[in-house]
């Protein structure tokens, strides 16, 4: 093996807090060689980020690192501040998780990039500009010269992360530390950014330490992996060895928890039952939700309608789960709220048990709320911090089961806590005393305590670690079997959706592009967007990842205010005017129960035109 560029030995990081010292990292050793990508994998709280920050000497003030960190022959821990500053950003740079907060908002992209060159290489003026533009082009940012004058908020998330990468690469560093670089991005954008990082590593022979929780990303990117848990390395090795022959129980558990987009078999874990053909319980027809957006222009400005949900129709049979998939901004959460009448729909009907409930007022809806419930994304934010979890769970009962006495209510809450796998003695705990997974169980308990008929899960497992995510999914499937729940499962994660759904609907900018039975979608995707979405999800299997041919979407998600955006997959009918009424692609039934929107041939899919 070549001389490692970064060599960490016996690193320990301790934080002094008012509650005593916290050992975030306990004796960790690893090396990164030039041109190698090392994956540092672990769940939240495993100390993976702190190890990287220690290597950069960027720990928070109350943190202290001991051990040895050697970077290109220099001891980072003993280095004086001045010398550190010369190395940081020039020879060793970092990419952070959230590209919006990592860029200074009031400086243009150009100003921020030039600053780095000026500090490290004394390069100014036209020479600096040329170098910046060269790198922006290398990270495939279109119209690089114009982007130099733009502010971070003018760029999309994927574009910002590419700017971050360009900034990190400006001085040709020998080591790149990437801390969850794609976690905040959509799958299709993630695929683009990962592709870019992989190319850069090959071209420039930069060593990359990639910190992530996503086993799929690791399988896609890395040659070697270390698996961390609670500040310790539980397993380290070549990527194939870890994936195909894991030794440690934790690694095995982690790999088993990861939902696989390419297989539906859940092993010994619960899986969904087929649904008996019955009359639908919920029928949504041509639902539209629009928000007025104020635009510049005229004396008082003008309003333009943002079509968050633009004509969505589907139905749900009792005991069925509908998976709703799409990238951020595609209107999936708005759809959920539109169905529940939390946001008024502007058009279309929602029929619940044959009764049209769209446009009902809050008071009138109140009686129905017992049967229609929702589980939210952020487990902590969806619980009132000032109420015990028992009080939170009991609240719907208080409203909908007035016949129950206080004691009966408490009994029911305790029973429900057991049902969702929590200790009934936790009834008087506050949300902050529980972990994320436990809080999400509380959220589920609150939603199902009134024995509703329909539960909408809005990104209910997205904020959880993979192992916890797997448990919550198990719980949802078991509850569905036990109580005959009908569910709408909304997620951006296609692999998770595959595990729980009977049917799947793919949304793009508020419109359905493909709607079919679960296996049909994954094995026989017809619309180019669905194809790109599925191909973009990294599989936690290195051999499959290496062999995979990717269909990458070019560019970013366009603005939904621009009516041209909706015709991205059917440019043949496009009228080139952002305000014009565009052609609406029709839905075509290509097979029984498999509907696809019309599209032009693209990305390896044949065109589809309604006859």
């Amino acid at each position, binding site marked *: 093996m070549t001389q490692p560029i970064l060599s960490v030995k016996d690193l320990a990081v301790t934080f002094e807090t*008012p*509650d005593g010292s916290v050992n975030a990292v306990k004796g960790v050793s690893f090396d990164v060689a030039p041109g190698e990508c090392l994956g540092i994998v672990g769940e939240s709280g495993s100390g993976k980020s702190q190890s990287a920050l220690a290597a950069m000497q960027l720990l928070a003030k109350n943190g202290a690192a001991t051990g040895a960190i050697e970077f290109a022959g220099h001891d980072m821990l003993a280095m004086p501040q001045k010398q550190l500053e010369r190395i940081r950003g020039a020879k060793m740079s970092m990419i952070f998780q959230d590209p919006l907060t990592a860029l200074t908002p009031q400086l243009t992209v150009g100003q921020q990039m030039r600053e780095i060159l000026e500090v490290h290489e004394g390069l100014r003026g036209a020479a600096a500009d040329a170098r910046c533009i060269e790198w922006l082009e290398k990270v495939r940012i279109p119209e690089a010269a114009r982007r130099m004058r733009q502010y971070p908020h003018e760029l999309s998330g994927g574009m910002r992360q590419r700017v971050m990468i360009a900034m990190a690469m400006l001085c040709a560093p020998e080591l790149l530390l990437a801390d969850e670089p794609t976690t905040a991005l959509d799958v299709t954008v993630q695929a683009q950014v990962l592709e870019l990082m992989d190319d850069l590593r090959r071209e420039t022979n930069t060593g990359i330490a990639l910190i992530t929780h996503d086993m799929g990303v690791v399988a896609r990117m890395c040659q070697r992996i270390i698996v961390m848990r609670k500040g310790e390395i539980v397993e380290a090795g070549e990527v194939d060895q870890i994936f195909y022959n894991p030794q440690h*129980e*934790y690694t*095995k*558990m982690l790999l*088993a*928890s990861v939902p696989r987009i390419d297989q539906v078999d859940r*092993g*010994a874990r619960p899986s969904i039952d087929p649904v008996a053909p019955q009359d639908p319980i919920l029928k949504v027809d041509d639902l539209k939700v629009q928000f007025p957006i104020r635009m510049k222009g005229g004396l008082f400005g003008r309003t333009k309608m943002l079509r968050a949900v633009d004509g969505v129709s589907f139905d749900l049979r009792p005991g069925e789960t509908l998976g709703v998939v799409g990238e951020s901004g595609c209107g999936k959460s708005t759809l959920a709220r539109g169905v*529940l009448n*939390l946001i008024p729909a502007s058009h279309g009907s929602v029929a619940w048990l044959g009764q049209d409930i769209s446009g009902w007022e*809050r008071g009138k*809806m*109140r*009686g129905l*709320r*017992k049967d*229609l*419930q*929702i589980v*939210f*994304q*952020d487990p902590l*934010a*969806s*619980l*009132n*911090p*000032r*109420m015990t979890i028992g009080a*939170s769970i009991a*609240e*719907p009962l208080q*409203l*909908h089961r007035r016949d129950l006495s206080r004691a009966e209510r408490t009994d029911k809450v305790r029973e429900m806590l057991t049902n969702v796998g929590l*200790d009934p003695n936790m009834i008087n705990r*506050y949300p*902050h*005393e*529980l*972990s994320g*997974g*436990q809080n999400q169980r509380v*959220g589920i308990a*609150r939603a199902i305590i009134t024995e509703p008929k329909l539960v909408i899960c809005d990104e209910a497992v997205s904020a959880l670690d993979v*192992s*916890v995510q*797997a*448990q919550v999914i198990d719980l949802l499937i078991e509850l569905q079997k036990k109580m005959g729940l009908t569910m709408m499962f909304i997620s951006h994660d296609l692999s998770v959706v595959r595990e729980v759904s009977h049917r799947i609907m793919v949304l793009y900018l508020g419109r359905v592009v493909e709607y079919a039975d679960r296996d049909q979608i994954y094995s026989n995707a017809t619309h180019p967007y669905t194809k790109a979405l599925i191909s973009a999800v990294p599989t936690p299997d290195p051999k499959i990842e290496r062999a995979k041919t990717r269909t990458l979407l070019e560019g970013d998600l366009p603005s939904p205010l621009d009516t041209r955006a909706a015709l991205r997959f059917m440019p043949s009918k496009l009228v080139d005017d952002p305000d014009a009424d565009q052609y609406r692609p029709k839905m075509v039934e290509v097979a029984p129960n498999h509907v696809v929107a019309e599209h032009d041939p693209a990305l390896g899919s044949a065109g589809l035109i309604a006859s």
Partner: protein
Amino acid sequence: MFGTRHAETLTDAPLEAVKGRSLWQDARGRFLRNKAAVTGLIVLIAMTLFALFGGLLAKYEPDFVDFSLMGANAFRGVPSFETGHYFGVDQDGRDLYARVVQGTGISLLVGVVGAFVAVFVGTLYGAVSGYIGGRTDQIMMRIVDILLSIPFMFVLILMLVIFGRSLLMLFIGIGLISWLNMARIARGQTLTIKNKEFVEAAIASGVPTFTIILRHIVPNLAGIVVVYATLLVPEIILFESFVSYLGLGVQEPNTSLGALINLGARQMNNGTLWMLLFPLAFFLTTLFAFFFVGDGLRDALDPKDR
């Protein structure tokens, strides 16, 4: 392949108790580490005890006029333990110690009652306005704006002149203005809370609007309300002192620190400086203590700081 094994690890993972601390525990820790705030709190407690029980130590009633000292204040009414006038006497020959005890009590009372009205009315008004939003919010907040734009000192003086000068009138006057800023603050905070998922969850469960405000919004305003209230108390004390200084506030035989300072200041040229300095010292100490405690609370409860 590893079906049963991983099931075991799966179940033990979430059961590890997460050691959490509540907002309040966290805040208490931070507050106690702030030395100025803790000192302020101790001083405030001492000041309250002084106002409540200080009278027991006094040798004279606050309204007892010692006519033997008439005209001889400057040399016979000086602060001394022998005569029992620990702080000396005022210009009318009354015991200044007993007067300061009484004045401190009244000043604290005015401040605390004013702040209480502000907390009660202001929080509810602001929470309702912010939560309901739309036109209701517009109207409710414009009313606050209009009330704030009236020069209140002027109105208060008019009120005291027309309805007669009494403690009750003073309370009403101060109560009328003190809640306005609180309402604005509570409304602003409500706007951020009402978009939280737990409020949406409550709506989705069918909780009626007013219950949401009382059960989900108001308890979450507590932090900012407590901070603002502690900062409001000294403001009101200052306000009352100013009114009393003008001779419109608390009436004889009652007194407040502001009134005492007023009387003391008039005697400055007569060589009886203690008449000014004793009430002034208590006044400043109380104000500083309140400000330090309020500041400490703000630092301790400010969520941006974490």
